[in-house]
């Protein structure tokens, strides 16, 4: 079964969702990510979903879960590059992802993580 690759850049983990997220894939990502965070002692997680053009409530919840889990493991999560259609869908579904930090693109997301890491 295919999986979403998790790249390590210093103390930041980089997840780029390039394929259509189906439920199994999302669950697997959550598993892999939490393992990776503890293994690498990462301080930040950056999830790039700019290639994702469709979400449902399950995927929305997985994104929120990833952020919450990472926070417990002492890693900041930033979701970057959400498409307008995806944002509208999530809002209409009533999932405003409180507590998830967002940025327009990877560059700004990294800045955000660096700022958080300095503190």
């Amino acid at each position, binding site marked *: 079964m295919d999986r979403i690759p998790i790249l390590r850049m210093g103390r930041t983990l980089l997840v780029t969702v390039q394929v259509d997220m189906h439920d199994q894939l999302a669950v697997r990502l959550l598993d892999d990510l939490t393992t990776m965070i503890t293994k690498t002692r990462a301080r930040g997680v950056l999830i790039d979903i700019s290639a994702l053009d469709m979400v449902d409530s399950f995927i929305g919840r997985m994104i929120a879960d990833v952020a919450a889990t990472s926070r417990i493991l002492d890693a900041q999560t930033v*979701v*970057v*590059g*959400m*498409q*307008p259609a*995806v*944002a*509208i869908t*999530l*809002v*209409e579904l009533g999932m*405003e*992802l409180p507590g998830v930090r*967002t*940025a*327009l*693109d990877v560059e*700004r*997301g990294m800045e955000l993580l660096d700022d958080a890491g300095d503190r």
Partner: protein
Amino acid sequence: MASSTNRIIQVLQNSQVQLLADWIKALRAATGSHSAALISDPELQAQCQELIALLPAAMQSGGFDDVTGEPWRPVREFLAGVSRSRGRQGFSPSETAMFVLSFKEPLFINLRRSFEGHDDAKLFADLWDGLRLLDKLGLYTTEIHQQAREELIRRQGEEMLELSTPVIQLWDGILAMPLIGTLDSARTQVVMEALLQQIVATRSPIAILDITGVPTVDTLTAQHLLKTVAATRLMGAECIISGIRPQIAQTIVHLGVSLGDIVTKASLADAFKLALGKLGHSIAVG
């Protein structure tokens, strides 16, 4: 019936000049001085002449009963063109239909003049065919006139929707969207999409939603605003709402709508200043 059709066609072909003169006279009499101001004599004459020229061929191959068939297509297209231009020139639907209906009188006078005494029953049958035909064509012009009007209204509605949602780049990284008019669900959708698209296109981290021009805010409108702000945040940008008028602020509080942690400013200027500050710019006087 073959000979019946032939006689009107004959009149149309043989006394074109007489018909044209009579028709224009009848047309001017029917529509009064109002039409004279809207359409010039040469233009009217050209239109009449073209219809007189088009009719015989259509009658010959298409018959009198069915004007929706292929042989009548040139006539229909011509009438549709006339009808549309009448609509634009400001003619009423009845005045537009009158263009065709006023042709009855000259046609029948000329028909009688040519064939009086030759088999009056036949003359009556011819008249009747012609009457029905011209009525159908008249109705057709009215229909097209109506369609053109409806099209205009629809287009204006769309244009208004587009006009009312401009996204302005105030500064590098700062977008503003001044909203004018009532916000309903359909409009909010357009507003939201336009704003989010522009945020992506310009990579602007700050968007200002100015509602100075929104006359009233009810729970639904407030809900829509909240959604827009939430969607902006999800995309990684920040949304500031500005231009909330005193009455609207009161309404929002009375309605019990919580704007949560949304940043609101009284004026667009204040919001702009805040946005500049967030980007690390400051305004220096002098």
